[in-house]
């Protein structure tokens, strides 16, 4: 079995995996980073979104081997000790989550949006979330959270 190495949340990691292992399996099963979730088998729900080399990506669409040498950030890597990241804080303040299953993907996806577009409109947020499904919140408070998070990040 090939060995796959990368940097995850600032730490160098490596594991021997079967070639068909997806990045999301590598994170969840080999590194125990279970904050990244699997909600579908057709790359549509967005529960598995992480950052690979600074860009949001559905970790179920990529083989672990394709991320060899990459710099990966997962939901576990956002908070600074006890301090939540401003986007996490915005979700908490605005009740942007209920069951929490879609939440890691939503937060990681939102961060890529505000990186590209620091002051998005409500419509832009809704359109950006095309690839992230939530069954609980009706998106109302997710959109509100992302707008608030964007504002907090603009300072």
């Amino acid at each position: 079995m090939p060995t796959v190495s990368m940097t995850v949340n600032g730490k160098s990691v490596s594991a021997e995996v079967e070639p068909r292992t997806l990045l999301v399996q590598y994170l969840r099963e080999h590194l125990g980073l279970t904050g990244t979730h699997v909600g579908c088998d057709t790359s549509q729900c967005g529960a598995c979104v992480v950052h690979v080399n600074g860009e949001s990506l559905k970790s179920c669409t990529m083989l672990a081997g394709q991320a060899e040498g990459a710099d990966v950030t997962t939901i576990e890597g956002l908070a600074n000790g006890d301090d939540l990241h401003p986007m996490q804080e915005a979700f908490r303040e605005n009740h942007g989550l209920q069951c929490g299953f879609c939440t890691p993907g939503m937060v990681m996806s939102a961060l890529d949006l505000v990186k590209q577009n620091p002051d998005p409109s409500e419509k832009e947020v809704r359109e950006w979330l095309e690839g992230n499904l939530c069954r609980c919140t009706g998106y109302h408070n997710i959109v509100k959270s992302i707008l608030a998070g964007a504002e907090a990040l603009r300072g």
Partner: protein
Amino acid sequence: MSATGIGASIKRVEDLRFLTGNGHYTDDINQLDQSHAWILRSPHAHAKLNSVDTSKAAAAPGVIAIFTGADMAADGVGGIPCGWQIHNKDGSPMAEPGHPALAVDKVRHVGDQVAIVIAETRDQARDAAELIAVDYAVLPAAIDMDTALSGASLVHDDAPNNRCFDWEIGDRDATEAAFAKADHVVSIDLANNRLIPNAMEPRAAISEFDRSTGRYTLHTTTQNPHVIRLLMGAFVLQIPEHKLRIVAPDVGGGFGSKIFHYAEEAILTWAAAKVHRPIKWTAERSESFMTDAHGRDHETHADLALDKDGKFLGLRVATKANVGAYLSTFGSSVPTYLYATLLAGVYATPAIYAEVQTVFTNTVPVDAYRGAGRPECTYLLERLVTKAARDLGMDPVELRQKNMIQPDQYPYQTPVALEYDCGDSPATFASALKASDYAGFEARRGAAEKNGKLRGIGISTYVEACGIAPSAVAGALGARAGLYESAQVRVHPTGSVTVYTGTHSHGQGHETTFAQLVSESFGIPADLVEVSHGDTDQVQFGMGTYGSRSLAVGGPAILKACNKVIDKAKKIAAHILEADVSDIEFADGKFTVVGTDKEMAFAEVSLAAYVPHNYPIEEIEPGLDENAFYDPLNFSFPGGAHICEVEVDPDTGHVEVIDFTAVDDVGRVVNPMIVEGQVHGGLAQGVGQAVLEGCVYDADGQLLTGSYMDYTMPRADDLPNFSVSTQGVMGASNPLEVKGVGEVGAIGSPPAVINAIIDALSPLGVTDISMPATPNKVWQAIQASSVRQAAE
């Protein structure tokens, strides 16, 4: 009142773990030495199982064991039970065919379980499953209800014509008499589209068996761990409660689909004792589509009798409901007692009669999905009433107002069994009309027209029933379980509290809301309270979470236990303060001797309870830990009014939901932030049902909507910002006066959306559109009506 008590929008305790990736969902959990399971499923909707040859698969790499239905049958494993027995019109019981966990002689829907493969890894189990040779003799499938009722192909040999039961409610003669004297009769035929619940977390389970103690443990994605223990332990596997532990850890949404006892739970638990290894199974999304119980799926004809002034005289309803291939846990109660008992709706219709036939088909079982019966009922009533207004040339607002139950009529006995304890539909309706600027609608319609859009407005006024109760009544109607809830309130020596509840939170925020109840009761901050749920080894008993019952039934149980704690604590305080217990008052977290400045804080009394040096030891025991069970006196009846505005693009048929206003009466609100969030989520599912979602099987029983590419889930850009408010009417028959909020959004909203679409299309002569109102369907309706109009 405490700052973190009832009415405070405090932030959720749950959020920290979910936001940092530290939730513990079932698939996040791994046991030492665990094996992995893959379930081989039927590719056919209906087939005889001639043989299942596992020999090649058994030799595949990593395979530990393979079991089939024959193995389970040989062990005397029972079938998956149904939780509610319904009786036919003639008094005979419903058809209740067997439901083996692994198929024995036949498979009855695509996705039916044929074998379990247990291997070292999931990939190995899956690879081996492909080597199992199954000889199927394909049989004709019964998919749509009419074909099924013709009996040409029987799903179960012991259910003639595929009928499960033929049930009725209400007074047929009185209803016929009402129609005989009616000035107008308005009729409607409609379908309530079949939905696939799609909680974002797929179902999963991990089973374990401890040979040294004979104990089984099952972690599973359920909304009601004790119910699973009861059903699986007592009926399927014959494991007594003390040897069976069910744990529902963090669960990623349920919406009803995780109430039911599923075959995989029994298969895994049984197999753990065979292989002496923990076994983990997680559904792929395509398995969720194929095997999670679906929702709705009714076809209904209804007639409304009115007098010349538009007063409702009578309602007659005939419904066919699809129960799928097997009776799921609540599959029989949803289209009966959760549906037809609500047919009065918010109206004082004096005579109502309904008959419901349920039908077995070669599709996955149909059971409760957010609202369960009540959305079907509300959709019927609110479409029918809107149609009546249109047909009779009356104003849909006035027609509703004229027929609504008035506030002074409560308690109101309906002709279909329920007694509404309190409510005020005219008030919530008035508020919704105002909040939506109903009066200003025509100007908005005109403005849209200038942009080439057809704008419409639709109304839905509704009442629903939550917290099925009392147990004795539910039992008389066929429920095979009690429907109370339990709570344990354990005060620790230093005054912090752990609450054990038999309900289960999978997004609802109980850990926050229930802590607020205790905060209010004891006058302590909510962060001194921890709520524990989901583990049958920790929680004494419980019926779980569904039917918006947790706060309405579980809440009063907590309150009862808190009151027992306070009663005992007063005795302790009286002893220490050397006063008579009748002179002790408890308020704001302090026990005071009335008329004096002698007082003890809550934590001082709790400490005394555990360090009983100066203590009335002859009168009461040490400790401060109380249990309570609460059995409700009645259902609770949330209600309200939903108003929707849509714009239709006549060139494409695309419907945009522009505005949605909901004014809901959910009684007393404990955490307004959480309550609003619950309404948002319900509305999204209701709008989804109305315009996006629909399960489709082809005539052979293949599921055509088996992935997110084919089944349209509501996405952020399909939905508007919702305008949501609550207007609580007090008087619900529980000590908290709460009514339940989990389902109101999904119950009230679909007819508001469809009524709005029909209103938008009415200038073109369109009078009907079915759910989901997809662009294709809307465009077709526009074309058909313009052809018709041109011909006229």
